[in-house]
């Protein structure tokens, strides 16, 4: 048996919980899709079968996790987990409202900030090099139609 306080750090338990949750939500959403019959399958047939499979495997893993200790290896790297996706989101927003260069510079700085070894000068240099390189390659080389700067919506 896995002690209750270790469950949230148990690979099998967490994986099982995830499959179970996704499967359950997928089944619940698929209620709106007609199932049809095996002869004439509706849009709900395939998803419900798949979600069912996921729920079954989810329960199996969940039970195994409760029965046997199976701790997660490695760090949860909370800082990177939050900052790195955020960097991508900022890039997305700035591409539409700020232009290619601001988006890229912010992306490089924000991603670099997700590491514990952030060094300002180093990041500044790589941001400049990357920006010049990308503008050359993507905008002039491949001809992607993005404005370098734009102030729309800002």
């Amino acid at each position: 048996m896995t002690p209750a306080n270790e469950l949230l750090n148990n690979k099998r338990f967490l994986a099982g919980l995830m499959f179970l949750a996704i499967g359950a939500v997928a089944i619940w959403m698929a209620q709106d899709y007609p199932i049809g019959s095996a002869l004439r399958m509706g849009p709900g047939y395939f998803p419900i079968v798949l979600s069912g499979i996921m729920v079954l495997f989810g329960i199996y893993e969940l039970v195994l996790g409760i029965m046997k200790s199976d701790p997660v290896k490695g760090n949860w790297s909370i800082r990177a987990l939050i900052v790195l996706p955020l960097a991508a989101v900022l890039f997305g927003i700035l591409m539409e409202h700020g232009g290619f260069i601001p988006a890229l510079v912010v992306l490089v700085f924000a991603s670099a900030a997700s590491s514990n070894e952030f060094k300002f000068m180093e990041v500044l240099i790589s941001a400049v090099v990357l920006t010049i390189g990308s503008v050359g390659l993507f905008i002039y080389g491949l001809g992607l139609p993005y404005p370098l700067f734009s102030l729309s919506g800002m």
Partner: protein
Amino acid sequence: MELFHNLILGFSVALTLQNLWFCFVGCFLGTLIGVLPGIGPLATIAMLLPITFNVSPTSALIMLAGIYYGAQYGGSTTAILVNLPGETSAVVTCFDGYQMARQGRAGPALGIAAIGSFFAGTVCTMLIALFGPPLAEMALKFGAPEYFSLMLMGLVTAAVLAHGDMAKSLAMTALGLLLGVVGTDVNSGMARYSFGYPELTDGIGFVVVAVGVFAMGEIISNLGDKEERQVFTSKVKNLWPTWQDLKISFFPIVRGTCIGAFFGVLPGTGPAIASFSSYMVEKKVSKHPEMFGKGAIEGVAGPESANNADAQCKFIPTLTLGIPASAVMALMLGALTIQGIAPGPQVMTQKPDLFWGLIASMWVGNAMLVLLNLPMIGLWVSLLKVPYRILFPAIMAFSCIGIYSINNSSFEIYLTAIFGVLGFFWLRLECPPAPLLLGFVLGPLMEENLRRALLISRGDATVFFTRPISCGFMIATILIILLMGLPMIKKRREQIVD
């Protein structure tokens, strides 16, 4: 003579200046990214995929194949020099390659890896040219039940042979299939799992899933782990193995090629199985098995050849049947679809220049890698010295620009960020993402063929067992599951995949 005619057509396409250039760019970029520690061929291809969108389908595929081989070779370089495998198949190369590097023989290790890969590539190019057309002809007779059973077999094989827990792999496959369902249902026109976003009615782009999981998720995971590497750089001088090395390596390379080619044509088996098998065979037949793990050149030559033979022969089921035989091939087929070509047995007859051009360029690409790596090894080595904290923002920049350029919209970027977070959790929970990607690409195809099969049979599910070819695939699928359930093999499997 048909064969020669086809090969000549192929080389006439592959050897045009334009395609040679794309092949070179592919090999170069593939090696460049593949050398980066912790990035396997899958992430490399996913990241570089968007830059192939703007060129013609033939050139795009040639470039992608170049990226694929380059990434694989780059991965071996990293395995030998830093002991950091980019993917599971390179783990075997670490055993003896890294030991060779420590003994100051990094050059011969890198050289024999390139020579072995080139030999395997040459043999497999011939194999594809020989067996591609008859297989495609056979595939033209496949109906919906055959396709469904074949895909099921591929998915199950991929899942049970994946790294780690079988139940998790199968659940990940189901999740992948489910993600593939997202979007408008072709039969009823109903939007499924679109959460009210019009962007999702077209489905999730596979580049989004691949880059999110294999690039972003991987970076988050790497940032959590403390970086430790020791690069054996000063010692890479002479790349050419000695005559003695070549003599010892000859039979391992031949055996490795056979093993790799065998596993290569089976859908679902990853390159790791081929290279592990080759390593074990070499250790068994060797006169001095105690040298393995201490810098035996056979331990590099065999698995590296097997690895490349497997990679190349994966094109056989992929191109002739239109069914991706591995996660990497799923990306290739995705690229084909983006170029407006429906993958399948008809590609060979309808687009002979594309098919044979690609096959010829595989050989050209392999040759290029041998030539490319001799003068450029210094560049790869210096790249390995760049600290990860400088590399990963560049990877992010490249990935994000690539993703944005697919649809010129930020929606894909946000989705990628979500898949990055998910990918990180999957890595930590040891849920293998490769079966998920395979399922994701096969999802719509499988649903369509299941529907059609049951429509033909009037709802009778035994149709999968009453048609001989389909029945064969089904029996194979069941056998694989049963075999893997046997305690003896289960133990062995754990030894091999972990």
